[in-house]
């Protein structure tokens, strides 16, 4: 299998590229998504959003970024300075570390490890630590409440999320994200959401469970990235932005970047697990390393779009509803799916 390492034959350059390209991608993606989200929000409410800077306000995200860069970085006197400064970086680190195992294309994957998706779950759990840290260090009751909610939410939604991943791992028999993608290669009919690359009987039997797992993972991933309808940790109306109430300037921007990066990360996981990762939907047509990254980003952006769409549709859940959805709906369904998939795969 060709990879960037084998193509370039220059370990230092490859390492640098593998480490930096996702970061550059994330920065550009964050600006695009910021713009896209504002535009979508506005158009859903029959407004126009940014219109002044550049054509239809396309330069506005850059202006916003410049503003955040030169803003005063305020640290509250009563805050725990060390933790306060550390928290946003930890949050972003957890998210960005997970990108190491995301296969952007058949040749581009940071680390092609066999524990891929397991590592991803573990690394992205670091985000909880960062959020709790920021809430505690802010020394602000809103922040603390936000952080506590966030911890409760992320920990409880990780269970159905991981169970859904487990179901997929049972079907594909691997945790390596590159292998997971390759197993779904060959066109849209081989994607796991349509039953995967299996004999017809098995495929049809898998179909409903795959769909259920997809919905379960989508919902729990939405909760993990703290977006509406699961944005209780931020809950602007009650908690004044929750854990990032006290943050300003670049630290706030990093929280934002981490949120958007996390959004793409969970979308990427959905894409890799159910929608064939970088594989082309037309089989051999339009496939290859470059087309692969195009398909991957396109599919990922579709789920980002879906997330934004849901965000501007549904109101925020109550805390007890949130827990109800996680423990009483998603988890039993995921367990049921796993048992069913076990039987199907054994047969």
């Amino acid at each position: 299998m060709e990879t960037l390492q084998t193509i370039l034959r220059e370990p230092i350059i490859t390492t640098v590229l593998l480490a930096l390209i996702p970061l550059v991608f994330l920065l550009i993606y964050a600006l695009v998504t910021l713009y896209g989200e504002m535009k979508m929000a506005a158009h859903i409410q029959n407004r126009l959003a940014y219109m002044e800077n550049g054509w239809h306000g396309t330069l506005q995200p850059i202006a916003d970024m410049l503003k955040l860069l030169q803003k005063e970085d305020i640290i509250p006197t009563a805050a725990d300075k060390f933790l306060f400064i550390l928290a946003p970086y930890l949050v972003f680190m957890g998210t960005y570390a997970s990108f190491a195992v995301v296969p952007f294309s058949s040749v581009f994957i940071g680390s092609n490890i066999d524990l891929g998706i397991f590592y991803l779950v573990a690394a992205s759990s670091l985000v909880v630590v960062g959020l709790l840290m920021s809430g505690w260090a802010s020394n602000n009751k809103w922040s603390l409440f936000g952080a506590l909610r966030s911890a409760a939410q992320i920990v409880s939604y990780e269970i159905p999320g991981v169970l859904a991943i487990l179901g997929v791992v049972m079907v594909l028999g691997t945790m390596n994200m590159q292998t997971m993608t390759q197993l779904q290669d060959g066109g849209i009919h081989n994607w796991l959401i349509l039953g995967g690359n299996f004999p017809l009987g098995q495929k049809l039997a898998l179909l409903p469970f795959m769909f259920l797992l997809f919905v379960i993972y989508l919902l729990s991933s939405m909760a993990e990235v703290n977006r509406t309808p699961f944005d209780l940790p931020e809950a602007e109306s009650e908690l004044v932005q929750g854990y990032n109430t006290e943050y300003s300037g670049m630290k706030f921007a990093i929280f934002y970047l981490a949120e958007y990066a996390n959004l793409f990360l969970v979308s990427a996981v959905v894409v890799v697990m159910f929608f064939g990762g970088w594989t082309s939907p037309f089989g051999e047509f339009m496939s290859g390393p470059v087309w692969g990254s195009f398909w991957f980003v396109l599919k990922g952006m579709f789920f980002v779009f879906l997330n934004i769409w849901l965000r501007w549709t549904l109101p925020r859940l109550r805390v007890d509803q949130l827990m109800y959805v996680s423990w009483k709906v998603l988890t039993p369904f995921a367990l049921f799916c796993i048992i069913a998939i076990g039987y199907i795969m054994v047969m």
Partner: protein
Amino acid sequence: MTAFTTYFNDIYRAVSSAMIGMKITIKQMVSPTVTLQYPHVKKQMPDRVRNRLYMNFDDCIGCELCAKACPVDCIDIEVMKAPPTESLGETSTGQKKRIYVTKFDIDIAKCCYCGLCVFPCPTECLKMTDVYEFSEYDRTNLIYNFGTMSPVEIETAKLKVKQYDEEQTAKKAAAAAQAAAAKAAAAAAPVPAAAPTAPTPVAPPAAQTAPAQPANQEPPTTQL
């Protein structure tokens, strides 16, 4: 309903209502927006809109009816009756102007846009326009001075009025003196001293005030 059916019913309702919501939002997203790009595009105001007051000073006859009608006293007018010999021109409605309007200020910050000042105006020189963008950084800029008379003109007018008044008083005095003289003459000759004393008290004050007044006033009079 058993707990079992409620459970599944709840899930069904949650999913279906979310789907309905998403259908609505996506429809709204592609439907045309309603935003007006305000500074670039302005909304057409209704015909009888009451916004910033406009005053056509050329048509003002100084009747002060608007100031009296104003419920918040935002119109400040100072007037001076012109001598009948003076011609102030006519309004566009053909009415003769007889009063100097030395000051016509509208404090638009106080204005409550009731429009009550517009109707009493006999010459229809007050009007509410559809202009609504008149914010100012300084509150004093919100006092609109509609009066077009310059300080020089006001001083001239004052002088003219003064002169006319003096002439009038002089005339009156003369007339009174004449009348008194006639009276005295008619009454009889026994008191001849009354006739010469009568004009003397009137003339000196007139002579005194005439030079004294310009000295008290501002430089404009000296320029004249």
